[in-house]
């Protein structure tokens, strides 16, 4: 398989995952804001920070209002991490690698693209937002379902898996980090509201569709240390860090010249599992999460170096 084709499939899967994750994030945040007690200091701008887009945002908007943040995350062409931009990227990548996928993939992506294009403006006000975001999540899951049901599981498939799982692992760590940041921020400025941490962790779980799996696996109420442990160490839940790493391990072992990649994934898994005090809510825990994020970014470069065309 050509290196460029491999890279396109990988990015197609990453961007598709990003589309879905962005939809989830905005959806959960909309709920979170409604749940929080008055006077709690958590703003929409956290979503921009979580996606590392503050610079781009500042260039575009003066005020960090809900409307601006949501517009920026969903509809803004200028922000190439926005849902619209990510979906455009999915489309461009699939357009040039159509032959590697089931024929219906292209049609379904086009449908999803059209749906977002025609409806995204509606989602900027709260009243239609839910319905729109559910439509996006469904559309993206439909594509993934189509692929797992009909695509030959050859090298192309493995690159899709790599892209999807890397993006997932990345998003899981970002959401964890955002949760911790919100709690740290709130506790530093005032006496935290009684159920504030619980609300935050509940929403962290929801944003990853992890609430019920968490309750089943951990058999406990929503507690911060258990939530972080679950989202990092669980090997059954498809959005936990370790699950994603295991799948990337499996996918890459089926590809040629995988030695270095396999080693690096193993190293990152070890790092994720190292003894950490999950009850600690301070900078050291953020550093641990931050190191995992750097590990994920390095993993991407390791894939690129092994299989993708060199960057000009």
């Amino acid at each position, binding site marked *: 398989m*050509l*290196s*460029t084709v491999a890279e396109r499939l990988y990015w197609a899967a990453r961007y598709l995952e990003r589309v879905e994750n962005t939809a989830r994030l905005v959806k959960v945040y909309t709920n979170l804001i409604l749940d929080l007690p008055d006077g709690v200091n958590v703003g929409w701008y956290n979503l921009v920070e979580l996606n590392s887009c503050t610079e781009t945002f500042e260039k575009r908007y003066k005020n960090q209002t809900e409307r601006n943040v949501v517009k920026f995350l969903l509809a803004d062409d200028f922000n190439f991490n926005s849902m619209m931009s990510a979906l455009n990227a999915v489309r461009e990548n699939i357009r040039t690698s159509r032959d590697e996928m089931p024929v219906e993939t292209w049609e379904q992506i086009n449908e999803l693209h059209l749906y977002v294009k025609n409806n995204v403006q509606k989602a900027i006000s709260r009243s239609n937002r839910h319905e729109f975001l559910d439509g996006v999540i469904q559309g993206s899951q439909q594509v993934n379902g189509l692929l797992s049901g009909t695509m030959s599981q050859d090298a192309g498939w493995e690159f899709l898996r790599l892209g999807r799982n890397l993006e997932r692992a990345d998003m899981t760590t970002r959401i964890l980090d955002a949760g911790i940041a919100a709690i740290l921020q709130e506790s530093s400025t005032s006496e935290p509201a009684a159920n504030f941490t619980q609300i935050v962790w509940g929403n962290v779980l929801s944003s990853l569709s992890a609430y019920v799996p968490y309750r089943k696996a951990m058999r406990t109420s929503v507690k911060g240390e258990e939530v972080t442990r679950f989202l990092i160490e669980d090997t059954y839940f498809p959005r936990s860090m370790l699950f994603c790493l295991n799948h990337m391990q499996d996918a890459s072992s089926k590809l*040629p*010249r995988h030695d270095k990649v396999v080693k690096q994934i193993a190293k990152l898994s070890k790092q994720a599992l190292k003894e950490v005090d999950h009850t600690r809510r301070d900078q050291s825990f953020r550093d641990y999460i931050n190191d995992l994020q750097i590990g994920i970014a390095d993993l991407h470069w390791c894939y690129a170096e092994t*299989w993708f*065309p060199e960057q000009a």
Partner: protein
Amino acid sequence: MGIDWKRYKPAQHFDELISSPGNARAPARRLVSYLASLNQEELDARRQTAEATIQQMGITFTVYTDEGNIDRAWPFDIIPRVISAKQWKKTADGLAQRLRALNLFIDDLYHDQKILKDGVVPAHIILDSKNFRQECVGVSPPLGVWAHICGTDLVRDKDGEFYVLEDNLRVPSGVSYMLENREITKRVLPEFFESDRILPIDEYPSKLFDTLVSLSPRRVKHPEIVVLTPGIFNSAYFEHAYLAQQMGAELVEGRDLVVGDDDCVYMKTIEGLERVDVIYRRIDDLFLDPEVFKKDSMLGVPGLVRAWKKGKVALANAPGAGVADDKVVYAFVPEIIKYYLDEDPILPNVETYLCEDEKQRNYVLANLDKLVVKPANESGGYGMLVGPHSTKRERDTFAELIKKNPRNYIGQPTLSLSTAPTLFENANVEPRHLDLRPFILQGEDTYVTTGGLTRVAMQKGSLVVNSSQGGGSKDTWIVDTEGKA
């Protein structure tokens, strides 16, 4: 009510299907009477089937506009053009003869230039041509063949004979549409394909593959063949992807390839570098290799021409082949055929006046309102003057252009292009002008497509068939009527 053939009037042109109102030509008789048996609803349903098929198969071509590039659905007319197998046989022989001679000509130009020394073709015409590539002098491509894939445009004049309008020896496109047109027609008029009278055309991709394989520098069982495309923004990208897929070859862009220190060409795969034997390139000469041609080309591969010159990779078509599809060289093709093959040309040229000759130039300048004037090196119907449809101002501009650079212009009589019935709404059929582009392959063997791509000028009275300028297309049937009822 269905089609009323008595009301169809082909005027003074040769019509492909109808010889006089109500009378079909022999090879088209069955088709014409069958179409007349369909009522308006049935005809509409067939047209819808065609449209749906085009959408479903994703057959598009790209139009460049100010607002960016747009993928348009392929404009298609469901009534096929029909040609008898007997007439086609002669035409195909003529096309093969022509390409054989042109390849000998190109090879001669880059070696001994005997034809110039013998004064059959004036030397300055070649040596001043911007398509004569000094870089190619002395190169001997495999089998001595330079133009492996040729698309030759034919038109039928009033007399019903095919004339050669031009040869395209660089990167001719359209063959995928020829193949897709047949796929569409099989769904739209399936009842006709039950008998074997319509000759099949689907062997083209495998013939192309065989031609490319025969050029491989390495005698290996499975040489690596790739199709080199400029990328998704090229108007023929659909075709590049289609042919690669049909041949089971990789579709690559310049950045997927690299020339090694050993002068071999490699493609970058997930396994590492893999050697490439034959490149079917759909990029113009000038963009092929920034080391040799345009220095700022982002589409090409540095070192590619070096690899080709050393015989480590085959390029189809070879760089420099375009020297022979210059419209001034065109005027000499009958002499070229006689010179190299010692045969009479089977297919006639359209009469051509060379503006560089004073007498012929004066004739052209005096008759601009009657002639078609073409620049020597353009394709796609651009930069042309169609005399009878021109304004005084356009004619004045062209007179200036010709006087400034006579070598670059030719004049031809305005041909009365043949027509064929084209179906419009309400079972209305009207004559529309068309041409024909067959494709000819030359490697170890020579092959001519069975028929070719018929392009239709969809506007009433228009002679412009280019898809970039509002042309459409229809299926082309070569029908074997002999020995069968």
